[in-house]
């Protein structure tokens, strides 16, 4: 949970995806680097792609309305463009404080 973020820069076209709380548990992944398929332009597109990605992502992303997204450490809405994204995080609504 407090592992150091990987500070190596993603390669050309690569993006870092991060998962927190029950999204980390259900996907079994805390961080991955990959090149997204073409045609994924917004946060909404990305959530749809995750829900069609196969086990275990399909189940973890079955209810996208329960999932929040941050691009480069900033909260992002479903309509937000991912064009400038180096790191995208997925997590449930926050419950600190």
């Amino acid at each position, binding site marked *: 949970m407090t592992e150091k973020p990987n500070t190596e820069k993603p390669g050309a076209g690569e993006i870092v995806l991060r998962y927190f709380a029950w999204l980390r548990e259900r996907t079994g992944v805390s961080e991955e680097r990959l090149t997204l398929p073409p045609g994924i332009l917004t946060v909404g597109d990305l959530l749809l792609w995750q829900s069609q990605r196969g086990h275990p992502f399909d189940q973890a992303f079955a209810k996208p309305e329960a999932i929040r997204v941050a691009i480069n450490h900033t909260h992002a809405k479903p309509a937000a463009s991912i064009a400038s994204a180096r790191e995208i995080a997925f997590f449930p609504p926050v419950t*600190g*404080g």
Partner: protein
Amino acid sequence: MSVRVSTADFDVSEEMNRLTAGNTEIGGVALFAGKVRGDVNGEALTSMTLEHYPGMTEAELERIEGEAQRRFELSTSLIIHRVGELKPGDNIVLVITCAPHRKHAFAAAEFLMDYLKMYAPFWKKETFASGATRWVDARESDDEAAAAWAAYSE
């Protein structure tokens, strides 16, 4: 103005003294400390584990603190949030606001807590005496509290 994410506990007097030392424009200090409760709907809690998003957490807390500074007449402020495994009675979060006048100190402290609960990337997982674990659900009342501030600023 400062923010800190830490596994360690904090000492309230020490933090208050550091914030106010030598600053005699401060007429009021408001403070909130959030603590782990011993039960959830009657079920005994054995521990509470706090996960966060390093990097984004600090960025969000600084953004929230900056927003408070724009909205209120603040001399200085502090946010400390703990992470890791905590026990009932342990401190979770500390917010301190110092202002020339008490109304601004109070309002800023409440604002910081409301926004922190809405935007700062922390997640709580409860472990019960039965061994069961459960991620805490976000409360609608927290979203409403933050929405009320947004309306207030219009």
